[in-house]
């Protein structure tokens, strides 16, 4: 082994000492950059692509991302709608406040926040993990290489339909979530015996702005992009067999949730 010259040892030691400090932000930046590049390359659509082929692919993905998620999204938002109303009754039962405020409270929380966020979290697990596992398996079983070797742009071919499906179907799922959540809230309100469903709807209508729905739709669209694109990124870059696929799947779910929260804040800050 060569012994480094003594005058360089300080700089070398500083560099070596700093390396662990740099590893985490450096790794994050590296990952973020790779993610951006993947998206840029994927959406730089090949000119020779066959729309019919992509459309078929897109339809398949839209069913898998959207239609197949309707039951779980309905279940999750039905419960969160009910919980919102129960808590609203508990917190807002006050002789000075009109009972219809429960409906107002439910409308505001479900349309603005829960409808999108609960849906997004559920779909991080259902859609994000599925996409990551699928692409990760394709990666480790050389199927992505096979696509590339055929002369296909595998990024566009795999990423675009999935992300597009997310962007197009998440608003649909938001509508499902908001509807189910609001209706379930009304049912719970009626069952509570404290207020009637009419009072609930009256309250919901009192401060309703169509912009709330627009905001929810935009947010769900953003979440759809965030969740599917992150899942595509982790899945597409999976390596190391079954373990790598597992890691990619976990990362898709965790990163998806975290970035959904960031995106939620960004949307609120920019659009409200």
């Amino acid at each position, binding site marked *: 082994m060569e012994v480094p010259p003594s005058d360089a040892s300080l700089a070398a030691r500083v560099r070596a000492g700093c390396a662990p400090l740099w590893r985490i932000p450096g790794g994050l930046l590296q990952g973020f950059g790779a993610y951006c590049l993947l998206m840029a390359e994927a959406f730089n659509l090949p000119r020779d692509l066959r729309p019919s082929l992509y459309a078929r692919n897109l339809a398949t993905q*839209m*069913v898998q991302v959207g239609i197949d998620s309707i039951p779980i999204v309905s279940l999750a938002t039905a419960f969160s709608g009910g919980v919102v109303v129960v808590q609203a009754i508990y917190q807002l039962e006050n002789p000075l406040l009109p009972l219809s405020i429960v409906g107002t409270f439910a409308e505001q929380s479900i349309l603005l926040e829960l409808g999108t966020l609960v849906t997004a979290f559920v779909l991080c697990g259902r859609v994000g993990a599925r996409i990551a596992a699928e692409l990760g398996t394709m990666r480790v079983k050389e199927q992505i290489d096979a696509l590339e070797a055929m002369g296909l742009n595998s990024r566009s071919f795999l990423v675009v339909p999935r992300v597009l499906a997310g962007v197009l179907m998440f608003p*649909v799922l938001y509508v499902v979530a908001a509807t189910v959540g609001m209706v379930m809230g009304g049912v719970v309100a009626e069952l509570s015996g404290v207020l009637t469903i009419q009072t609930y709807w009256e309250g919901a209508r*009192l401060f*309703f702005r*169509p912009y709330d729905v627009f905001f929810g739709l935009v947010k769900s669209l953003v979440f759809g992009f965030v969740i599917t694109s992150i899942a595509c990124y982790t899945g597409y870059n999976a390596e190391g067999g079954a373990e790598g696929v597992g890691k990619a799947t976990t990362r898709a779910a965790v990163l998806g949730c975290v970035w959904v929260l960031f995106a939620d804040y960004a949307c609120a800050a920019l659009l409200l």
Partner: protein
Amino acid sequence: MLTNEIKVGLAVLLSAVVIFFGVRFLSGQSLFGGGYEVVAVFEDAQGLTSGAIVRLNGVRVGDVQEVRLGPNAREVFVTLGIDGGVDIPRGSTIQTSGISALGEVAVEITPPSGADAGRPLVAGDTLRAVSTPDIFDLIAGESNSLTARADTALIGAVNTFTTLDEILQNSGGDIEAVLAQLRFLTQATVTLVTEEQGRIDRTLASLEDAAANASAVSDRVGRNVEDLSVVVGNDVVATSGTVRALAETNADSVTAAVNNLSSALRRADEQLVELRALTQNLASLSADLDSTLNSPDGTLGLLLNDPSLYYNANAAAAALQQILQDLQAEPGRYLRELDGVVRVF
């Protein structure tokens, strides 16, 4: 067969439909159209917002669609979405109700009283709203009418004193003479009166009896003089002496009556002073209410929970008015007593 394309298309279409009807439903438009819009012009919207409920005789018939200020901010134009199938009679009054601080301001429509309501309103019609103050304004308004009542009381007082003055002026020398006499008698008996304060009421009650007796005796005397002028002359003298003695004896009561009158006058004077103070209080109360209404951290609740303030003011004004009304209605109440005295002499 349900291909993927059909499933997706169906889902997207359905959600578009749900958005359309959901937004219409939540923003209070009737789901399938058929409703119509009328415009109500308010001077003050009282915190009305779009989405607020419109009631006809207390029944929900629609929602507020839009609230916007008119030109120069003189008026507020409120667009009301009325459900289809609901007729609002022409000539209905429209006003806001509820308290904006508690978040529930609604629009109340009341049909005109009387059977003939006329043809109903149609889309695009405009209603001019009756300006109804909300509950805080009602309190403020009440204090205004309180001031008004105090005013009438004052006017009444002035009238009373004018009448009193006229009566005194018109009775001319008689009164003056009586008053001179009274002054004399007063001076003569002032000590006695102050000492005999306890007996005043009883004496006062017997005053009229005494006066009536005196009158009857005088009549009898007149007749006796005609019939038995000489024979009963001594008697007459004796009777006159009795009468005089009677009058002398009753001088206390006359003095008391005069005293009564003067104390009544003094009391009226005091009431006037109190009235002035009360009016000032009321003015400051109004100012307080105004500032309370306008101040963001106002103690509205305190005011609401303290009706005694209002009632006290009201009762004071009412009592004062009662006194002055009495004076006005019977300005000669005490003069009647004087009249008895006059007739004695």
